[in-house]
């Protein structure tokens, strides 16, 4: 079977855009893992919360996309801090797996809170309809470009924060070695709260990006969570640059799978990627420890 080169190039471009959008919540997932050392599955519902916060700001409040992104970041981040403080933090002493179970239960609860308020209907953001741009053989939508810019700005902010601010350095120190960080007088509780705020805020931005791209409903977050896990595991659980590399890999792989698989199987690609990586290189592309 020969595949036209243009089609492949188009899929790679789409995949890179989708991967960049996926990287935003994947950074959140991996950051929480690095600092709090448990897989926080409730990221799924915080994606949904962000998507709906952005929807209310945009469709009901008439705010432009960038303002909806900011609203989603704050709302999902605040929800993340409260939920962690009230629900998950008390479970963590019982072990990472108990906290993981609690996170799944929390996701179900939050998803149903959204369902209670908004119902099960599909909702779309209020966006102008624009014609795609044609660059040679490749088509690009203005919304795709806007989403790409939002995602890149969000990621640049994360990297700048971690590299240049005192708090960012404290966060990396806790991720590296909590005991040593404690000896240096870093307040682990405060770092945990900040991590939750930032990570769930990023999940919220991820939700808005999904809303700008398609439609949203209470299961929006759950539907992408497999791709988010895959991005984090492929890149190396706990590594933030890894999450970006992993997300781009998964994004492109999901799009390229369209050459031979039905579109509905796109998310299964993530699962296959997880199986492959754990079999061949469990620490992922850029991760350090998996044992």
């Amino acid at each position: 079977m020969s595949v036209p080169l243009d089609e492949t190039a188009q899929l790679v471009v789409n995949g890179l855009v989708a991967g960049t959008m996926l990287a935003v919540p994947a950074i959140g997932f991996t950051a929480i893992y690095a600092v709090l050392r448990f897989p926080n599955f409730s990221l799924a519902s915080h994606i949904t919360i962000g998507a709906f916060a952005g929807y209310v700001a945009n469709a009901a409040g008439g705010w432009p996309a960038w303002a909806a992104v900011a609203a989603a970041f704050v709302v999902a981040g605040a929800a993340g801090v409260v939920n962690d403080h009230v629900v998950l933090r008390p479970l963590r002493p019982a072990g990472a797996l108990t906290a993981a179970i609690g996170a799944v239960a929390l996701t179900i609860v939050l998803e149903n809170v959204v369902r209670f308020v908004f119902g099960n209907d599909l909702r779309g953001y209020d966006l102008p309809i624009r014609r795609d741009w044609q660059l040679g053989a490749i088509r690009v939508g203005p919304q795709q470009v806007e989403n790409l810019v939002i995602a890149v700005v969000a990621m640049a902010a994360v990297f700048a924060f971690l590299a240049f601010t005192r708090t960012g350095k404290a966060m990396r120190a806790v991720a590296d070695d909590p005991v040593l960080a404690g000896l240096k007088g870093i307040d682990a509780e405060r770092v945990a709260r900040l991590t939750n705020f930032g990570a769930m805020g990023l999940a919220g931005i991820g939700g808005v990006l999904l809303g700008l791209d398609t439609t949203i409903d209470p299961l929006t977050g759950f539907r992408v969570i497999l791709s988010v896990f895959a991005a984090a595991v492929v890149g190396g659980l706990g590594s933030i640059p890894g999450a970006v590399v992993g997300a781009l890999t998964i994004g492109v792989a999901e799009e390229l799978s369209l050459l031979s698989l039905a579109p509905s199987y796109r998310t299964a690609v993530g699962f296959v990627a997880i199986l492959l990586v754990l079999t061949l290189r469990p620490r992922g592309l850029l991760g350090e420890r998996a044992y």
Partner: protein
Amino acid sequence: MDNYLVAMAVFACLYALLALGLNLVWGMAGMINLGLVGFFGLGAYASALATRRGGVPIVGGLVLALALTGVAGAVMAMITARLRGDYLAIITLGFSEVVRLVASNEIWLTNGTDGISGIPGPWRGRVTPETFNLIFLGVAALVVMLVLAVMQRVRHSPYGRVLRAIRDDDQVAAVAGKHVLRFKVEAFAVSAGVLGVAGALWGHYTSFIAPDVFVPLLTIYVVLALTAGGTGNNWGAVLGAFLVVFFMEGTRFATGWLPGLKAVQVAAVREGLIGISLLIVLRLRPSGLLPERLPRVAS
């Protein structure tokens, strides 16, 4: 009303099987399975297709479900056995989503989201629905007793002791010369097999399965059943399953009294309550109603 109670008892038995299966890995060996609904679904589809399309007798369908889910569980345990437990959590959660994806999309095989109807049940159609219900309750109770007996045997045997050692500290178990990897894979495979049989029975009882039966919420039901009953305690698993079924049915009546709510809101309240209950139990009584008591070792 009698019929309703019998039906609830059958569902409670099926949940008890799921909780017993989960107890073997999570309660005894300390391995997590957040995608048990995936194994449940795989077993249900395997048995339903074999009996409905392949003309295999129901017992054959159950054996097929057991074997298929056992192999799937073994593969997943093998891939993650050396890694931290978090990876097993991710991989099982992912697996359950993939099972649902395949069930929804391979229409030639599974009839997609329309589901498979007309799955045969023992003596269904030849006896009255009431008698069928009673027969199935007998079958389900028999399977629960069988699995419970086997699990109790495992718990009190040296094998179960090794599993608990692995749960508490797998390095110590390895130092003591136990082949940790083998124990983990075996326990996970057997547990997955039990989940698969529960799924197969579900299909033969309700005569209809569809992808939206196998949602993550069901995993939460079972985890709630085991945690409330007593993680590590087989009797606790059974007790918890019955409690959860009656609790769920109770919320059905309780939410009926809530005025002015739309159907979707009532459903949201009920699902939310399940999640909240699990969080409350995990927080306030993580050892459950019947806490695990370690079997006495003869000295």
